[in-house]
């Protein structure tokens, strides 16, 4: 038996940089494989920080779903306010980013490609975590704090599946991991840092379109299990409300269906397959709206109710 490959954190930065500049790195994030190359100076360091637990797989372009190259902008932009650009199969579909911010461009570009190309899966716009073999989906509403809650759960014993994509396989009904660093915005960054000393958060990028962004690195356990899907049992629509006590409001299957389907990346595109998959989810999952201001209290309540929910014994925190 051969030894497992080292993780990115265990490899010399120099080697990461060299691989990125030549045959590239393969990032297996579960339901997708990303092939990344680039000569951007900061890329190796930033990527190494937030994909630290992922295995070191240089080369490997043949197996990838998505190929991206991040390189320094040429011409005047090499010296004057230098920029980094993203090339996808020879084309440049996005505006450049400042040269010191290759990671947000990589994440944004890869998420965009995943959202367009993986139509073998129903891609809900939702955070997803697993515990006791069952998955909890957190569909995104603008300003809902989906990423904060997903990140917090992942630091409290839940396995992170994804903070952006609830990737449901229409044939099995399982939620498949699309395990990428969790993009935290603004105040969330400090909230998550304060929640656990084990939180590994990459560099902060101020002045992006969404304000300051920093990425929480998925932990070793989540990375090791990124090939394993989970049966979805619950949907929580989070809403952070200043000063509110933790409140659970039951959500009907039809409301859950709307929250899942109409926020999805490719629900329309999948047609009948999308409808059936979303319908099955809405029928099988228990759904609530969670209004909270105290994150710790919300997490504790969710922990308490989960075992009964997985066993099918209860239908909600107040049941």
């Amino acid at each position, binding site marked *: 038996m051969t030894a497992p490959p080292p993780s990115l954190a265990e490899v010399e930065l120099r080697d990461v940089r060299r691989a990125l500049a030549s045959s590239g790195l393969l990032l297996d994030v579960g339901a997708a494989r990303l092939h990344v190359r680039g000569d951007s100076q900061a890329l190796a360091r930033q990527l190494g920080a937030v994909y630290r637990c992922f295995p070191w797989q240089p080369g490997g372009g043949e197996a990838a*779903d998505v190929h991206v190259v991040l390189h320094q902008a040429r011409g005047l932009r090499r010296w004057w306010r230098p920029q980094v650009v993203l090339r996808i*199969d*020879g*084309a440049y579909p996005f505006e450049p980013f400042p040269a010191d911010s290759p990671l947000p461009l990589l994440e944004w570009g890869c998420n965009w490609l995943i959202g367009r190309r*993986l*139509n*073998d899966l129903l891609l809900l716009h939702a955070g997803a975590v697993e515990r006791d073999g069952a998955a909890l989906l957190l569909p995104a509403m603008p300003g809902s704090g989906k990423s904060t809650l997903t990140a917090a759960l992942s630091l409290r014993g839940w396995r992170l599946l994804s903070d952006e994509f609830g990737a449901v396989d229409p044939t099995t009904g399982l939620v498949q991991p699309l395990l990428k660093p969790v993009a935290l915005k603004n105040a969330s960054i400090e909230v998550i840092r304060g929640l656990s000393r084990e939180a590994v958060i990459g560099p902060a990028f101020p002045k992006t379109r969404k304000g300051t962004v920093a990425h929480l690195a998925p932990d070793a356990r989540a990375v090791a299990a990124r090939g394993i899907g989970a049966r979805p049992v619950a949907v929580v629509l989070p809403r952070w409300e200043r000063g509110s006590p933790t409140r659970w409001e039951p959500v009907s299957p039809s409301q859950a269906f709307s929250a899942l389907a109409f926020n999805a990346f490719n629900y329309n595109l999948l*047609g009948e397959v999308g409808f059936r998959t979303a319908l099955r989810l809405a029928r099988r999952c228990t759904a609530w709206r969670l209004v909270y201001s105290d994150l710790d209290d919300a997490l504790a309540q969710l922990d308490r109710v989960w075992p009964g929910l997985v066993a099918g014994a209860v239908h909600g925190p107040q049941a």
Partner: protein
Amino acid sequence: MTPGAAYDPQAALACATALQRPEGVLGWSSAQWSLQLRLARRTRLLGRLAHALHAQGLVDRLPALPRRHLLSELRASHWRTTALRWGLDRVGRVLADAAYPRVLLKGAAYQGQGLPIAGGRLPSDIDILVPRAALGDALGRLGAAGWTEPDLDEHDRRYYHEWSHEVPPLRHPSVRMELDLHHNIQPPLSRHPVDAGLLLARLQPSLWPGWQVLHPLDQILHCASHLFHDGDLHDRLRDLVDLDGMLRCFVVPQADWPALLDRARQLGLAESLALGLLLCARWLATPVPPPVLDQACAAGLPAWRRACLLPLLRAVLLPGDPDEGDAWTRRVAGQLLLARYQWQRLPLRLLLPHLWRKLGQRSADGPA
């Protein structure tokens, strides 16, 4: 492709060949699949390939990577072709009792005839044609039904309405695609204007009630002239594959080549046809008899012009190495073809002020 081997631009043709002989893909290595998926996405042939392989029941026999991406693209194509059909149904109702012909163009026409080249397309807009005299009526009806023109300044409005063969793209809040309403297949002031009356005199029924299509030979000539009179020819292999598909469908069975050459002369599109036939024969093994190629070139493509254009077209129509950016030669070729497009589209007295204006707008908008 083995690592380190030089990239061959002809690699993109393997996908076009696979449309003719799908079982050939069973022998592709994982490296070949990886490259072909990337190239086919760029040339917009991935959906066509997915459709061809699916129709032969071959998709399930492929490795996981191509299987997933072919299935994904097949779904995307199904969605877009359904959206096109639905959008046309809406437009059809608006124009139902109009007294003039309504004509499907391009992808809509291929779909509306059930042509083999319609399978697995990814239509991005709806193209239709009405007689120029009926434009006002059609626009009035569409406007009343909620279709709106984009906000354009005086110059751009004039550009479309006086110098173009289509009106500005129309949008409707409940239709996902833009509607391109044409009155001709070539700009009226271009160096190769087409008499739309000749097109309207030979319309054919489509499978969809209320909609007609151009005569098959005119569809071929429209496809060729649309490709070779466009400003951006990068990765446009799909248009050639369409041309190949229509030649095989409409011309090859009856060996109707003289009629095609005649019609090209009549419409003033001999150069486009010659270019199309040459490239189809060379790249896609379209069975064009050599004497026909000679006649087509004699009618519209002098040797010197062929010698100038073919290397440029080769550099631009076929995608470059997906692992690299464009070579400078490809960028220059693209610029030269763009200059040719501008030159052909408008007479100089209109072109120069137009470009001056666009240049001014670009510098006012700042660098892209």
